[in-house]
Structures are given as structure tokens and as C-alpha cells.
């Protein structure tokens, strides 16, 4: 096996080009789903790999409750630098658990506090709050019996025309109907499990917004109106922070969303034909990630098989 056992830890790097390609050439709906799935698979593989490395590398440490046979010489021969890798895997795994736990806790607490903030208001699908500060977001359903709600401030509504308000509501409703919050949570957990997956999280966040934008454009019947709603809302909320390096700065998500809406709509088909250059590139990239994921799974399985063979359970 050699160094290949470490592959699942590093392979998430291959997801970057896919994220770029999907963002640019796939329908946002397909892009969001694909990238979330890829992130989830790669994160699970890399975590599994880390856990197995830890077991192998540390089972022979004094005081370790794990059976000594788990790090039989034969097993350790399969893992290069088993001592170092195993010992490094412990803090890495602990950090992973801590970060993932924090993501989950934070997620729950923000949801709860948001739901509690709205307690006492009539249970309408849209909660309009008398606040001059412009904001709007979709608050996903906390429990199975409740529905998600749209929270919007008067300040936001005051800055939008009637058509743009409809675009805003259609956008948020698309988030709720598509349960985008779940996809985002998966992407966040994946990025917490392996830092190499962070670009995928950014990509999923962006494509989920684009997805809702496109749905809103269909619902409202005008891409231009949605673009204007986003633009005005952003300019209104902008406490314009100074850019770090203006000369090299890539346009942020908001201008890219507006530009995408002013451009022709993305093809309704989920996938570009394989004959075109884009189609070929995408297929290539996806095959690459699949191979990555498979080899991740493979080395994890192999490691498990070796462990099982040498351990009289």
C-alpha cells in the first residue's frame, strides 16, 4: 500500500477544479447537489483514514486501551512512518471532532435563538420585523411539524420596489423549499473535517444562492428584476468594508450573482453534452473525483482488511 494510505487525506485537493468548473458551467441546482455530495464523500473517506491511522499507530503505546494486535508489525509494515503518522493522527482526530462538534452546536444555537426571537409573533410564513437595518433570510423549520419562515426587516422592504420584493420572497422561499440549509450544513461539516475541502464549502454556499436566484427568476418571470433586487439590497446593507488588495481582488459573490442574472440563463439541462470542450472537461473532472473517492474508500477498506486479518476478534 505504501504512501497510498495517506491518499484520502490529500485527495480532497482534486475537488477544487471541479468546484470551479461546476460553478461556471453547470446549472446551479446540479452544481449544488454535485458539490455537496462530493464534499460529503471525500470528508467521510478522509476521516475514516485518519481514524484507522490512529488505531494502527498508537495501539502499542503504553496505556492505550486498544488491543495491541491492532498494530501488529504486519499492519505497521503497510503504513509508512506508522509511529509518526499514528501519533499525529490523534490530535488531528481530536481537533476534527472538536471542530465538527462546534459547527453542529453553533448551528443549533443560532437556529434556536432565531426561533426564540420570533416567539410571540403570529405564526405567519413571513415575519416582518420593524428594524431600519436591512436584512432578510430564510429561517429553516426547526422541528418536523413547523414550517420554515422568511424573516425580513422593514428596512430591507423599504429599499425594494414591489417587483423586487417579490423576487426577494421567491428567493428565500426557494431556499426553504429546497432545504438548502441541510446541504450547507453538510458542506460545513465536510470543510471542518478536512480543511482541504474549504473551497468546496464556499462553492456550495455560492451555488445555493445562485440556485435560489434562478428559481426566483423563473417565479418572477424576469432575471433583471432579481438582479436588481440583489444589487439594491446589497448596496443598502453595504457598510462598504475596505478591500484587502483591490488590484487583485476577485469579484465577490454578490456582483457575480448579479452578473450571472444579467447574462443569458443557464441551460436547463443539468449536464453539458460530452461532445463539447466544457462537457469533456467536466466529465474528466468528475471521473477524477470519483477515482479519488474510490481510492480513498479502497485504502480505508484495505487498511481495515489488514487489521481484521491480523486481529483475532
Amino acid at each position: 500500500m505504501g504512501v497510498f494510505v495517506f491518499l484520502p487525506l490529500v485527495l480532497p485537493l482534486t475537488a477544487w477544479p471541479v468546484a470551479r468548473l461546476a460553478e461556471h458551467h453547470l446549472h446551479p441546482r446540479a452544481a449544488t447537489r454535485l458539490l455537496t455530495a462530493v464534499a460529503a464523500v471525500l470528508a467521510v473517506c478522509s476521516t475514516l483514514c485518519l481514524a484507522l491511522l490512529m488505531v494502527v499507530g498508537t495501539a502499542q503505546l503504553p496505556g492505550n486501551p486498544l488491543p495491541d494486535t491492532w498494530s501488529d508489525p504486519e499492519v505497521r509494515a503497510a503504513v509508512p512512518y506508522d509511529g509518526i503518522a499514528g501519533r499525529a493522527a490523534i490530535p488531528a482526530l481530536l481537533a476534527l471532532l472538536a471542530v465538527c462538534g462546534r459547527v453542529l452546536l453553533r448551528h443549533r444555537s443560532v437556529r434556536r435563538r432565531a426561533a426564540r426571537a420570533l416567539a410571540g409573533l403570529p405564526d405567519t410564513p413571513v415575519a416582518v420585523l420593524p428594524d431600519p437595518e436591512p436584512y432578510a433570510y430564510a429561517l429553516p423549520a426547526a422541528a418536523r411539524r413547523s414550517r420554515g419562515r422568511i424573516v425580513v426587516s422593514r428596512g430591507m422592504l423599504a429599499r425594494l420596489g414591489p417587483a423586487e420584493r417579490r423576487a426577494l420572497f421567491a428567493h428565500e422561499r426557494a431556499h426553504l423549499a429546497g432545504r438548502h440549509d441541510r446541504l450547507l450544513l453538510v458542506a460545513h461539516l465536510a470543510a471542518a473535517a478536512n480543511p482541504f475541502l474549504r473551497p468546496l464549502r464556499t462553492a456550495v454556499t455560492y451555488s445555493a444562492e445562485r440556485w435560489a436566484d434562478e428559481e426566483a427568476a423563473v417565479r418572477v418571470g424576469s432575471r433583471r428584476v432579481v438582479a436588481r433586487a440583489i444589487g439594491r439590497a446589497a448596496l443598502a446593507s453595504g457598510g462598504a468594508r475596505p478591500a484587502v488588495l483591490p488590484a487583485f481582488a476577485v469579484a465577490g459573490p454578490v456582483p457575480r450573482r448579479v452578473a450571472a442574472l444579467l447574462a443569458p440563463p443557464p441551460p436547463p439541462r443539468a449536464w453539458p453534452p460530452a461532445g463539447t470542450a466544457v462537457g469533456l472537461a467536466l466529465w474528466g473532472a468528475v471521473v477524477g473525483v470519483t477515482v479519488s473517492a474510490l481510492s480513498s474508500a479502497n485504502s480505508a477498506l484495505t487498511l481495515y482488511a489488514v487489521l481484521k486479518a491480523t486481529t483475532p476478534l
Partner: protein
Amino acid sequence: MKKRDAGAAEPGGGARRRGQGELEAQVLAAVRAAGGPVTAGGVRERLGGDLAYTTVITILTRLHAKGAVARERAGRSFEWTAVADEAGLAALRMRRLLDGEGDRQAVLARFVTTLPASDERLLRELLARAEEPAEESAGEEGEEG
């Protein structure tokens, strides 16, 4: 009963955590219904008296910290006046949440994110393009400039 000033204080008695938001809304509604300055005891009576006096005080203090009620000293105790209504209270609570959480963006997908200066310029250009063909924009205010 521990006495803390800010909104972190727990309500006494059997009030469960889940009901906190509703409790606040109920107490605020009672203060509003009073129509003028009212003592904590008066609030408690209006609520039907099934809340402990300390609980009412705690919740009033918390509402005060959030800016939903005002209070004035009257003799040895306070008299309370409603400043916000239920929706106003919800807005105040929501604002605290939005201002407080560093990475709340992770959980609450907001309609738009904050703009860096370079993005703002770009966005204004794009918007100008979006407004070009005079669609029903007659009565709307132009924000450029």
C-alpha cells in the same frame, strides 16, 4: 435565585428554557395592556398570577436590557412602561442575534452578504446595466451617486 442584570439571567420557577421567548412576549403584552407605568406586581396580576414575582422581575429586567421596556423608580420599586410592541421585541432580539454571532452567515443564509469597496463599484456598474431599459422604474428612487 441568582440576580444577574443582563439578558442571560434564568427565569425562576418552572419556566422552561424553550418558553423563554414566549414568556418575554407575554410579559411585554401585559405591560402594554396596562396602558401606562405599571409595577411588577401589577404585571403579575395581569398575567393571571401564575408566575413567580421574581420571574416577572427577571423578565422585565431582561426586556429592559433589550430596550423593549423603560423603567422609572417609584418609591422603593420600579414602574415599567412598554417601549416596543411584540414585533419590535422580536426585531430587537433578532438584531442581537445578527450582531452577536461571528459566523452566523454559516447558519442563516442571508439574502446578500457584506460588500467590500471594490465589489460596490462593480455592483453599481452592473446595476446601471440592469436598469437601462426603462422598465417600470419611473416611481422608484435612484440610489446612485
